[in-house]
């Protein structure tokens, strides 16, 4: 690098400037609106202040959306990561792994709207799932999985599990396979290789996978409307924000809800990252001489 750097020193400023359009775009379209929304959230019809926030937290209909959203998104994230970790581990060197990843990528790319529509049909009272349960006598009456909590929860698993799986698989395959081999020659059984080698090296990846999975689940919107009970048990915070903005045209209130949403989200991210700091955070391949 040193020789290249000295040759290119003359042009250093020009090259660094290449980052400018990207930065400008994100500043203009992300940071500026975000700050604008932040300021807007403190304005109300009566002047500037915390009124919107006070209103949000003093109106159960609004403030409960935080608990509702967490109550759906947190278990869904735990289930997704909890399923994805052992499955990614078991299939990481399987000959069917490429096929499996190609299949699992389908629900991610189809997006939440299509999954919601599909689940409405599939899980509905006349859907194939209930038919199967009735025919096989696994259930005596149709089970209700749509227009309630479970519909939204299941839609989050359908789109979230493949996401978590692909993410964890990429972290797992990034761990140098010679390390568990070394552990094996030192007497570690496959289970202890997992506990003593894979798991500690996977902590950073797990933290990031959890955060990204949680962002997805926490921002649940279309499936909560289409597949849930948007007036009651699945009235998530996105719905409240959307209604404030596009049904009540109360942009300051909508901005306040968006800020609260971002705040809760970032709080969870910070919490996860804080836990991660307690663990090893270095390269996941052995040091090279």
């Amino acid at each position, binding site marked *: 690098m040193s020789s*290249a*750097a000295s040759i*290119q020193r003359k042009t*250093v400023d020009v*090259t*660094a400037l*290449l*980052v400018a*359009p*990207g*930065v400008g*775009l*994100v500043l203009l379209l*992300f*940071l*500026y*609106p975000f700050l*604008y*929304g*932040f300021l*807007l959230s403190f304005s109300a019809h009566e002047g500037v202040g915390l009124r919107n926030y006070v209103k949000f937290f003093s109106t159960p209909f609004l403030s409960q959306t935080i608990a509702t959203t967490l109550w759906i998104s947190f278990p869904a994230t735990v289930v997704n990561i909890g399923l994805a970790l052992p*499955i990614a581990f078991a*299939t990481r060197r399987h000959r069917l792994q490429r096929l499996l990843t*190609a*299949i699992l*990528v*389908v*629900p991610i*790319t189809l*997006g939440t*709207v299509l999954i919601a*529509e*599909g689940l409405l049909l*599939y*899980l509905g009272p*006349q*859907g*194939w*799932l209930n*038919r199967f349960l009735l025919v096989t006598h696994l259930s005596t009456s149709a089970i209700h999985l749509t227009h309630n909590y479970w519909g939204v929860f299941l839609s989050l698993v*359908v789109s979230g599990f493949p996401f978590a799986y692909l993410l964890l698989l*990429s972290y797992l395959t*990034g761990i140098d396979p010679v390390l568990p081999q070394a552990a094996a020659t030192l007497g570690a059984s496959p289970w202890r290789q997992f506990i003593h080698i894979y798991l500690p090296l996977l902590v950073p990846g797990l933290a990031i996978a959890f*955060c990204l999975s949680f962002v997805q689940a*926490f*921002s649940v*919107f279309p499936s909560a*409307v*289409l597949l849930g009970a948007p007036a009651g048990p699945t009235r998530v915070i*996105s719905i409240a*924000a*959307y209604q404030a*903005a*596009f049904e009540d045209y109360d*942009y300051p209130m909508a901005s306040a*809800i*968006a800020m609260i*949403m*971002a705040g809760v*989200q970032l709080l969870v991210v910070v919490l996860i990252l804080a836990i991660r700091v307690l663990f090893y955070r270095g390269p996941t391949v052995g040091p090279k001489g």
Partner: protein
Amino acid sequence: MRDGALTAKLWAGLIWVVIGFFIVNVFGLIAAVVVNSFATRWLGTWLPAGFTLQWYGSAWSEFQLDSVLIVTVEVVFAVVAISLLVGVPAAYALARRDFRFKRAILLLFVLPLLVPPMTYGIPLATVLYRLHLAGTIVGVILANLVPAVPFVVLVVTPFVEQIDPRLEAAARVFGAGTFRLFFHVLVPLLTPGILAAGLLVLVRTIAMFELTFLTAGPDSQTLVVALYYSVFAAGIRAGQSVDAMAVIYMATTLVWLLIALRFVNPTQLVTRVKE
């Protein structure tokens, strides 16, 4: 030893049962949509009474799919083109140079991917309304650029880092100017990265619901938003024509997904490339 082997077998069996269960149900829900889109009448039976193609015709006219598709193509390709044009040079600068505020800039590129689109989508929509851009195609494109540009930056940066800087030094030693260096050395070497980033942004933009939903007007809906409205308003229209539209949406996405999978690793769809 034998017990260990048995538990290992049981464990592996359990894993594949769970995978199988998941895949069967996902295909179940996709098949349900496809079957319904061809159904004449489907009430209380395993399969519909008969099959027809009429819903595709009615979906096409009812939902003005021709204009929706044109909008979708315009939005998606504009987003891909602009995000590559802006993101690739930024990725190059970030991979090659150390400068002040580099960490802050990296954080700036990661943040839009770390917070729910709703949180910046609503204020962004508000700003766009003030600028009279909300409800237009330009507004939709601008909103979709917010996650697309950082994604391109994060996907392409490792590709740039893989290119030996001595190659560029060599090209300069042999007399290539900046312009020639870029088009004769960097672009060919970066083609796999640019292709990967472009395809991934394309697939993600087709499926991006929230931002388009918040900024689109009646004339600037993409396929996914039109699909949402049609499902939302189900009951007014026949469910089959909604599903016909869903199948059209699915086909659009899957075609690009299949193309993408030829060039990129599935894991790149959810995260940036490592190494």
